[in-house]
């Protein structure tokens, strides 16, 4: 759209002087802030440390409610595969604690800082609120799949708990997973509990070279349909991180199993291409780049889209969009996740991207674009009216005064 302000591209900024930032020291204080805001109908921006502030629709409020001071791991029982932490706890601290017990979060949360040009320490609450998942999502599920329990303050200023610390729990409505990906619009998370898994002893990655997008998706599909438990399946077309196209399949586990499975999988995929094997160190470094979308960080003035679709539909979708938008892209999740960079001018491709995604029964999220663009176009995929009606009713049931991060996902929600 004309007049997009590219100067404020990297981080969303509100003039510091006019902002009030609440950093409650405990849950009760957070509840007071929200109850007060609800009584006065003053909207609050909800954030942890703000590293993903530039994700979602552009919103601007005078008052900010941050979970940064609600920090600390409250429970880690390695033998029970569970960790709980206050929402403002840095993700790095959670990962360090788990690392000491040779454990990890199953869903490999990505780090958005490079892509969004932000700084600070991502928090575990922010991970939950944005349902942040990385390449291992295809094997181990999304963030929401490991999200066992939450404490949050609703828009009435009431403290609510849902779920718990055990893996199997069907007691009552699953408000925990509802919070995942709600960007704080339904509740201010104060404490989150996650299932964890043992860290694999080692990893290796098979690299198939020179495949077209179509052949690559077929190869990834064959790999994911094999019994070898592929834990990462990405395709980097020519020009993405290297001159030639690379199709990647990651295997993780005990040393002996990874050795065997690497050979067996290479044999199973022989018809696609001969495979090269990356050792654990090379594999880890490359998958970090895939996870954090490093390949598309520059040039910084491009818009970035994240498109979710059934893997087999990805090649057709790219055929349509790639040419129309002069885009660069790569695929994760076996083809089910398309990261696409295109020009940020105009609507940053919103119309064609959403339309192409809709036609292939997928959906698109505008991850990076100037504030003015994010304020003007559909950042999240528009949904049919009956679902929007439910969306508004759910919002109303948790935040009747509409004070929690209003408009971050959809206008009026």
């Amino acid at each position: 759209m004309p007049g997009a302000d590219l100067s404020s591209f990297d981080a969303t900024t509100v003039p510091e002087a006019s902002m009030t930032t609440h950093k409650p020291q405990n849950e009760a204080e957070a509840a007071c802030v929200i109850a007060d805001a609800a009584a006065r109908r003053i909207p609050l921006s909800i954030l942890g440390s703000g590293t993903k502030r530039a994700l979602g629709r552009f919103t601007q409020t005078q008052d900010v409610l941050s979970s940064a001071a609600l920090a600390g791991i409250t429970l880690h029982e390695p033998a029970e595969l569970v960790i709980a932490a206050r929402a403002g706890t840095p993700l790095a601290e959670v990962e360090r604690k788990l690392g000491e017990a040779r454990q990890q979060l199953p869903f490999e949360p990505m780090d958005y800082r490079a892509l969004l040009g932000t700084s600070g320490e991502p928090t575990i609450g922010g991970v939950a609120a944005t349902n942040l998942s990385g390449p291992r999502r295809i094997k181990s599920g999304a963030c929401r799949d490991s999200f066992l329990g939450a404490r949050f303050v609703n828009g009435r200023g009431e403290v609510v708990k849902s779920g718990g610390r055990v893996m199997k729990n069907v007691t009552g409505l699953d408000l925990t997973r509802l919070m995942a990906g709600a960007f704080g619009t339904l509740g201010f998370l104060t404490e989150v509990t996650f299932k964890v898994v043992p860290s694999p002893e080692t990893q290796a990655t098979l690299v198939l070279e020179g495949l077209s997008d179509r052949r690559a998706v077929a190869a990834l599909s064959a790999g994911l349909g094999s019994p070898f438990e592929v834990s990462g399946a990405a395709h980097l077309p020519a020009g993405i991180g290297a001159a030639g196209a690379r199709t990647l399949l990651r295997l993780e586990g005990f040393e002996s199993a990874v050795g065997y499975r690497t050979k067996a999988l290479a044999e199973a995929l022989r018809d696609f291409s001969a495979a090269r094997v990356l050792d654990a160190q090379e594999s880890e470094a490359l998958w970090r780049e895939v996870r954090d979308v490093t390949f598309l960080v520059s040039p910084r003035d491009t818009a970035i889209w994240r498109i979710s679709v059934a893997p087999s539909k990805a090649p057709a979708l790219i055929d349509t969009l790639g040419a129309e938008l002069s885009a660069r892209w790569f695929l994760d999740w076996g083809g089910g996740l398309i990261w696409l960079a295109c020009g940020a001018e105009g609507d940053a491709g919103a119309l064609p991207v959403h339309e192409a995604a809709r036609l292939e029964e997928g959906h698109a999220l505008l991850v990076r674009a100037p504030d003015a663009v994010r304020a003007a176009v559909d950042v999240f995929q528009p949904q049919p009216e009956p679902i929007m009606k439910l969306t508004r009713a759910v919002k109303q049931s948790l935040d009747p005064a509409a004070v929690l991060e209003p408009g971050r996902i959809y206008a009026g929600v």
Partner: protein
Amino acid sequence: MSEIAFPAPDRKILARRDEIIAGLRRVLPEGGVIEKLDERRAFETDALTAYRQVPLAVVLPRSTEEVSAVMAYLHAQGVPVTPRGAGTSLSGGAIPQEDSVVVCVAKMSRVLEVDFANRVARVEAGVTNLAISAAVAHEGFFYAPDPSSQLACSIGGNIGMNSGGAHCLKYGVTTNNLLGVRLVLVDGTIVDLGGAALDAPGYDLLALVCGAEGQLGIVTEATVRILRSAEGARPVLFGFPSSEAAGAAVAAIIGDGIIPVAMEFMDAPAIRICEDFAHAGYPLDVEAMLIIEVEGSEAEMEAELGKIIAIAERHGVTVIKESKSAMETALIWKGRKSAFGATGRVADYICMDGTVPTGQLPHVLRRTSEIVASHGLRVANVFHAGDGNMHPLILYNVNDPQEQRKAEEAGADILKLCVEAGGCLTGEHGVGIEKRDLMGCQFSKADLDQQMRVRQAFDPAWLLNPAKVFPLDARS
């Protein structure tokens, strides 16, 4: 006799029964409406057979559009609805009420689409759990959640209760394997939530619907993830001299970084009951037994088993018995999966379903025995040890009202114990009517009020399965 109350039926609805049945006949084809008393009686209960209510009528729609037409009509008439799949709920989730119409999706039992390239299957809600695996087995795939009733239970019911099973330790429960649903809302509106893509835009309404016990809408179709089976799988029996030793071994295995695909626990009474039924070769001279299943190639299974056996030996294992053939494997699982049915041959029982942190298992097992003994009853324990999902079976005589009351009291005490130990009331069977009045033990008023407000966002008039989940006196 019944301790659990149903809401008083709406007399005005009962009085309009003929008119409502005529209305249902107008929107459904011939044979879609069941109204004769003896035929309705087949729908009066589910697997919680101590409670029964004959519904106003039963409808058997054959398509999403028919479900939609029925819901639009009943919504306009203000008539409550009891959704039903195969009627195997252990918590009374499918038990109707006198003034409700049962909407049973059993006739919607087609597998609509199998897509191996994208590893998904789209099925109608009445398809049985096992039929999904059967439809994809020829390509070496399976559908992971495996409740013991998988031969009979429907995927619609599995979604309603967010069902689990023995193999959830590695593969997760229904909500982790469900990608989308077609849902008919209370007013007949049809919506698609999720789909073949791995994540969906906006709020995770699919997560809300899964486990909502039919209170947010009627699921008519599901898109589920299918997985490629491992190269091989082998269960091994480990006998221990005490429950504590078996529990400690479970914790040590997980602590060592090993996640077997299943770790099932049985105590001595359960072992005997299941062995008598299935002749699976279970050891009868031990106090506790673990069935641990490993997966992978021969070499991988050997390596993982080697590690597990070493840990078991450190914890005083007295018997180790590996399955040597596919037939032995089938028998071992038959014994475990028929635990409830086998128990039903020796006594009536109620089956509890609380989950506790695995570190609390020895304590909770000991207290469970004490609680049941203090009511003068017996208990057999079989459960999913890896995730702490307990299934104490309290044995009693259903024809003795006093024993039934005692069994229910003991069950309630055990569930309170699970919550106190840091766990929850139900791990995979659902709240239903059975645990409805205990919800206040686990949740505060604010917690429950919030859940009910979200529920009302979908069904403001409380027409969908209204007798369930939320204590009657907690509603405003």
